[in-house]
């Protein structure tokens, strides 16, 4: 029983991180139609900046987190200016590749800045754990889940109740018509790139205490979150979050009870299976066609 609880708890925490990254990807995709492959490295950046502020400069936790989020937001905006805005007239493929290039550049800048050695960002709760049903659940994991749920609620509110959110939903449903209706796409893109970057940065801050901080921290997490994004159909954030949790929990359960050497394979298998069966995802979205 204790084993089961700790597996579930690990799955929930892992799913929360994947959900944070996935929310950023889906938000950006709804607003701009592209996927930012630098999302993983933005997470890494968040972890490193957090480390630098808290460990190297002894800044108190909460202000450090805020400063990190602002900085990563700005980097996201920079990515929009360099890798997206100049390429508006070019096919999507060009933008995807430029985000790859920027991911590569970001990673090497991080290495130049902090070196490639392992770093450690301690949790604000140190190593305290919560004992439940015989299992030890780190407080950090609980924080991760709470943070994710808060973000999800905030994003839902943003999308459903604000003008900005309405614009994003309009763009996602039928981009051409939305553009014709005069949505200020330039401004919106900048904000959305920044916001989705900040979400990745938050993910970095949250996950860093549970892993070692290395320059390649973000990429595998990005891959895992892709499964959630694909399952959720790139569209509904609720479906994406649910998928993220589901996949991570299934992964932990199967890894714990079935086969551990292939534990990393489960999200990939789920992703591939999902695309083979239903390429448009399992969550119903709204799409328009224009010829």
């Amino acid at each position, binding site marked *: 029983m204790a084993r089961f609880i700790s597996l579930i708890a690990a799955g929930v925490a892992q799913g929360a991180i994947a959900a944070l990254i996935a929310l950023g990807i889906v938000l950006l995709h709804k607003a701009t139609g592209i996927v930012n492959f630098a999302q993983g490295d933005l997470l890494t950046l968040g972890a490193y900046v957090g480390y630098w502020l808290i460990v190297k400069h002894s800044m108190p936790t909460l202000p450090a987190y805020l400063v990190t989020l602002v900085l990563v937001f700005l980097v996201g905006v920079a990515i929009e200016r360099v890798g997206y805005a100049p390429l508006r007239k070019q096919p999507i*493929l060009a933008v995807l*590749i430029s985000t790859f290039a920027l991911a590569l*550049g970001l990673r090497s800048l991080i290495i130049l800045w902090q070196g490639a050695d392992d770093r450690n960002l301690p949790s604000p709760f140190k190593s305290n754990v919560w004992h439940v049903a015989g299992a030890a659940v780190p407080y950090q994991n609980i924080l991760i889940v709470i943070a994710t749920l808060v973000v999800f609620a905030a994003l839902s509110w943003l999308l459903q109740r604000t003008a900005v959110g309405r614009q994003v939903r309009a763009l996602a449903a039928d981009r051409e018509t939305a553009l014709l209706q005069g949505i200020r796409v330039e401004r919106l893109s900048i904000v959305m790139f920044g916001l989705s970057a900040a979400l990745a940065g938050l993910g970095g801050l949250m996950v860093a205490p549970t892993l070692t901080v290395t320059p390649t921290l973000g990429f595998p997490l990005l891959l895992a979150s*892709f499964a959630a994004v694909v399952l959720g159909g790139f569209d509904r954030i609720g479906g994406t979050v649910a998928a993220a949790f589901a996949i991570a929990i299934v992964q932990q359960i199967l890894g714990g009870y079935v086969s551990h050497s292939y534990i990393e394979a489960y*999200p*990939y298998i789920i992703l591939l299976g999902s695309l083979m069966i239903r390429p448009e995802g399992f969550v119903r979205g709204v799409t328009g066609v224009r010829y």
Partner: protein
Amino acid sequence: MSATDQTQGESLAGRLAATATANVRDKIIGPRPVVYRRRQREFWLLGAVLLFALPLLTTGIYGLGVARNAMLLSILALGFYFQFALSGQFSLATGAFYATGAFTSAWVSPHGGPAVGFVAAVAVTALLGALVKLLLSRSPLIQFGIATLSFSELVFLVYRNWTQFTGGNLGRFGLQSFKVGGYSFNTSTRHYMLLVGFVLIGVYLLILFERSPAQRDQIFTRDMGAVAKTTGLHTRRLQIVAFALGGAYMGAAGSLFAHTGNFVHPSSFSTEISLEVMIMVLIGGIRSPWGPVVGAIVLTVLPEWLRPIAHYQDLVYAGGILVVILLLPGGIVSLPTVVRARVEPLLAKRRKT
């Protein structure tokens, strides 16, 4: 090669006769698409000479290692060219196909020689490519890219654990070198010559492909998506064929890797290779079969020259990609054309004044 290809004949008289025939034929048959009039033989010969001369630039303490790498990556890049440049499919599974080709060849060759291993590698990777694309044929561009990434990671995971096929932690060693009759390709120099030969074959096949209806069918499908289906093209089949052909090239490269290095190990393959190859094709040029080769050579040789600033290497790559995308979409290979287009009006102005 058909007789009609050879009408662009060797002698001047032959050329004149050919032009006369062509003019008459134009009137009877109709205009000849532009691609079919391009002279590619000269470029191919030039390329052959340069490739054989490449080692002179790169022999250092690694001997022919760098040059060998450049040739292997060229073949991978040529395969990626089929998938990416010709049919617009964004795949990050290059490394997985490379590995599959290498291990298949290593596994089969004890039972028939490296040549049989080569054939097996090409067949297996072509089929694998076709299967992957077939199963994912309804996925849009981005999802397909993500799927190939996942597929690739899955393949690497399997190969790391599947000891019977790949040798697991030990890998496979003592692999035979290629042999033709009594002549064995078993020295560094011979390895390199063999690889250059295959690169040239690879480029030549692409040139033949360009001078055939297959190219425009692929390009139209790449650019026009669902609309292409309404003109009667079998887009799904075309995409599967292109993806499989690309996979076949990558499998060939894998087999060549195995039998010129005589050792394969799962750690030699990773997603990094897929990204590198993509960057090579982009920077080298996506509008010409020589692009991938130029890109592979530049990006294999460059790190050697950039050794003093090795830390900034990735930054240089990132910058290079952005420069190509923003300023030079045709890549390095398009540089002469672009420069000529810029310079000619200036020269014309000079002549006037």
